């Protein structure tokens, strides 16, 4: 299946019944799939909205009623959704937001790039908030992480971002899809707006005029984020046991890097890989732990260097952090990366 179809099917199987979107390449297969699929599911709602701004606010409306809701877009459209993501965070509403990112800034192009790392992990919207950010690197992981994203969003009442890219959305791989959840069996939400029948009326708002109350709301969010940091960090390592140099890469770049590392291993270079799967919360501790054995970190991204800032924060000066990246939608080959990393490896006399 094609990545964008995998994502859409996994969302429906996770109980997503409300999809609101707007066409933008390279994610158009998501709304296309959803329009067909949700029309055949009981209670399924698909709307092609007039804008990304409208679609994220439709997500807010559906989420307020307790439904599992999703929207998807790519870079420029995600910029427009930032208002809604800030509101989702403030209102403590679950939602899944997909960014099949492309070259930027501005309109950029429609080729795969990872230039939205800052936007995804720092939040492009206003205010003190965080969003869980998951970065799959295969169609199978796209299915699994999307499926799990709805549970995470509900568990923490917070928006979850799936950060893919044009390549992941377009590539085709065999996938084992997760089973369909029974919506009625999902955990009860005791905060939804459904009409005040047999209970006191409720309201959901983000305007808190009293600074002391707003501060308390911020602390409440912070305590939630601390729980997420404690419980939801995901990463993966490969060839790490005897590695003298660790490549740090996420998403599709990690997949390419893995190919490069295999090539270098064949030549006897002790190179390993750590791949953050959750970009927020970032695996700071896991990388810090690696500094006990490894002095050299090589960050590879399909951008001009964004995640490298988190890697440096994780390394805390206990190692050298080197960077190689190409922005603009350039897809590197494992050969190119292996050459760059090997040359660094030999320059530093790591072996």
């Amino acid at each position, binding site marked *: 299946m094609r990545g964008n179809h995998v994502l859409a099917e996994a969302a429906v199987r996770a109980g997503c019944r409300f999809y609101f979107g707007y066409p933008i390449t390279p994610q158009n297969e998501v709304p296309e799939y959803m329009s067909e699929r949700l029309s055949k599911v009981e209670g399924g709602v698909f709307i092609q909205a*007039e804008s990304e701004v409208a679609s994220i*606010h*439709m997500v*807010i*409306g559906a989420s307020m009623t307790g439904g599992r809701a999703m929207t998807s877009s790519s870079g420029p459209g995600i910029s427009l959704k930032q208002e*809604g993501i800030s509101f989702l965070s403030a*209102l403590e509403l679950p939602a899944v937001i997909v960014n099949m990112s492309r070259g930027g800034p501005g309109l950029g192009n429609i080729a795969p790039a990872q230039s939205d790392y800052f936007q995804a992990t720092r939040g492009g919207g206003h205010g003190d908030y965080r969003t869980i950010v998951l970065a799959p690197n295969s169609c199978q992981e796209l299915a699994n992480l999307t499926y799990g994203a709805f549970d995470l969003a509900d568990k923490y009442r917070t928006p979850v971002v799936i950060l893919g890219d044009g390549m992941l959305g377009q590539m085709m791989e065999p996938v084992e899809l997760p089973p369909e959840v029974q919506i009625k069996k999902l955990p009860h939400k005791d905060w939804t*707006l459904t009409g005040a*029948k047999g209970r006191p009326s409720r309201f*959901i708002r983000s305007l808190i005029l009293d600074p002391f109350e707003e501060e308390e709301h911020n602390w409440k969010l912070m305590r939630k984020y601390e729980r997420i940091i404690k419980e939801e960090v995901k990463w993966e390592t490969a060839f790490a046991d005897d590695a003298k140099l660790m490549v740090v890469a996420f998403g599709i770049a990690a997949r390419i890097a893995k190919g490069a590392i295999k090539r270098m291993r064949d030549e006897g270079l002790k190179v390993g890989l750590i791949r953050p799967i959750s970009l927020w919360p970032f695996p700071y501790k896991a990388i810090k732990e690696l500094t006990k054995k490894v002095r050299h970190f090589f960050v590879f991204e399909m951008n001009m260097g964004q995640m490298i800032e988190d890697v440096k924060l994780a390394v805390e000066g206990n190692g050298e952090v080197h960077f190689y990246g190409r922005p603009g939608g350039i897809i590197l080959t494992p050969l190119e990366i292996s050459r760059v990393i090997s040359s660094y490896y030999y320059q530093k006399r790591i072996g």
Partner: protein
Amino acid sequence: MKKVFSRPKSLKRIPFHYCPGCGHSLLHRIIGEVIDEMNLQDRIIGIPPAGCAVLAYFYFDIDMGEASHGRGAALATGMKRALPDRVVFTYQGDGDIAAIGTAETIHAASRGENFSTIFVNNGVYGMTGGQMAPTTILGQKTTTSPGGRKEKRDGLPINLSEMLAIAKGSAFIERTAVNSPANILRTKKAIAKAFRVQLEGYGFSLVEVLSPCPTNWKMEPVEACRWVDEVMAVHFPLGVLKDVTGDKKDDH
């Protein structure tokens, strides 16, 4: 003794924060009465805006979900599609609906989304201190149209309700006012009709309410009420702009 007047059940016992002579308090009360009379309190969901009425959830004893500036129609779309058997209404000011939220509103109306909108038009951005609104009429002084709104500098005001009446998906659009007892009663009837239009599944319904803002208009409340009739209603004529239900004009 027969009780002839009391606080609507669907309003909480909290005093309004609105300025003296402001139309919001009246309008809240009317909506509360309609909700009571139509027995909707346990199945209606309101969407307050950013603006003076942002705190509406403190006053209405119904479920309410706050929208960001201008996005009420999008939020209501998501909500109503998720819960088609509930009654959903947005409460929006002129800056909210006719400037920043124009796209959301026109498209919701065009899709025939089956919710209702109460559009409070007082011709200024009230909460932010009286700046020029999309509905500020020519010559009207605001903090950002010094010397009065001028066509060449500031452009012309928008008649949003007329635009929405053209939309094929809209079912009922009426413009009323809350500046006199007769107009208040008429507004109440229009709101009840809008909710009925929604209950019967006709599609998008909207009641635009011309509402005095003595504070930002720098007028006495009585003068502001008169100004609604004498000046505002000339630019924004009262009456039914669209009704697809087939009811006779004054039936509701």
